[in-house]
């Protein structure tokens, strides 16, 4: 949706004193790894998260020097992470779900978690259709604002809001059931 106004140039969290250049890649990774990791664990489960995490940052490293220095780095890296998560989902759909992955999705293969209501909730998140799951995880795990969710999902901001709304509606039903 355009109102004929140029969108202001936004920039993501910056390394202090970067003086206009791209931060060193290590600093970029330090600044965004927690969000990317949380997003991936929620989106694909802990088993696939490690591979997706590595692929995300290696793809980012390749493209990094060509990036505009005023880029929104968090939205950018989560766009890549989102694509990797979708790839992982497609790959998982192609192969039958092996037994250990079922355990992983339950969260048993990582740190022990209580199987409380929050865990049920995140189990329900993983059951959401792709776009809804993406919108919910990008919003609540990666902490992205709507316009960045739209950027990461490659859709309009309105479509992102709609996916988020549909996802939340479905989740509310799932957890109150």
């Amino acid at each position, binding site marked *: 949706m355009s109102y004929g106004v140029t969108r202001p140039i936004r920039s993501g969290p910056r*390394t*202090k*004193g*970067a*003086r206009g*250049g*791209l*931060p*060193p*890649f*290590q*600093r970029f*990774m*330090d600044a965004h*790894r*927690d969000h*990317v*990791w*949380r997003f991936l*664990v*929620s989106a694909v489960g802990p088993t696939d*998260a*490690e591979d997706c*995490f*590595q692929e995300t*940052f*290696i793809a980012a*490293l*390749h493209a*990094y*020097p060509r990036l505009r220095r005023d880029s929104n780095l968090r939205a950018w890296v989560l766009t890549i992470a989102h694509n990797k998560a979708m790839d992982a989902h497609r790959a998982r759909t192609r192969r039958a779900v092996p037994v250990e992955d079922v355990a992983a999705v339950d969260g048993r293969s*990582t*740190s022990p*978690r209580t199987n409380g*209501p*929050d865990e049920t*909730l*995140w189990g329900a*998140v993983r059951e959401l259709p792709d776009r809804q799951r993406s919108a*919910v995880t990008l*919003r*609540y*795990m990666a*902490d992205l604002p709507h316009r960045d969710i739209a950027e990461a999902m490659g859709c309009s901001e309105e479509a992102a*809001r709609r996916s*988020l*709304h549909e996802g*939340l509606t479905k*989740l*509310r039903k799932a*957890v109150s059931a």
Partner: protein
Amino acid sequence: MTTGADSGFAELEQALCRGRHARSGERETAAAAAARLSARIATEGLADIAYAPVDSPFGTLLAAATGKGLVRLAFPEEDIDTTLEGLARRISPRIVEAPASLERVRRELDEYFAGARRAFELPQDWTLMSAFAHKVLRATYEIPYGGVSSYAEVAAEAGSPRGSRAAGNALGSNPIPIVVPCHRVLRSGGNLGGYGGGLERKRWLLELEGALPKRETGSR
């Protein structure tokens, strides 16, 4: 944090955000995954620069290497981010922390500080030096362990009509101190002159190498 359009999700959103905080223990897992990733990036040669802290009698130095070799050695007082940002601007922002890639630098420096090494053999990358600094530091590099030279001499060696002041500036810009031994260049007449790492360290290095008599006390 609300979706704005619909406030009926407040409870659900709270639960989703709680999920995020409950997972903050995963920060360690993320840090470990990132460290594995940095190591892999360095091993596979995907980064343009690897860096690591290196312990020394002066405190923790920062060492950075390109594929060609050691490109920067920074003293403890130098701000790490400023150093890394300088490298990002001047060489490449593809910079990762990878201690394994700096193993040889660490070993040779350890040996040097222990008095067990008189010459560095580690590969070096002199691309941060200007053409003139390159010449001056090349002349400086030829000064043997235990020896000293003067600003005027290295200026002459560098074929410079610009004299010792310009040579002093070039030495001050040395991106790889200690390894490129700018501490061996003194003012004519034996005055120590200057040193980027501080005169006390210059004296300490010259004492270590036996170019100056060791004082009773004092380190660093």
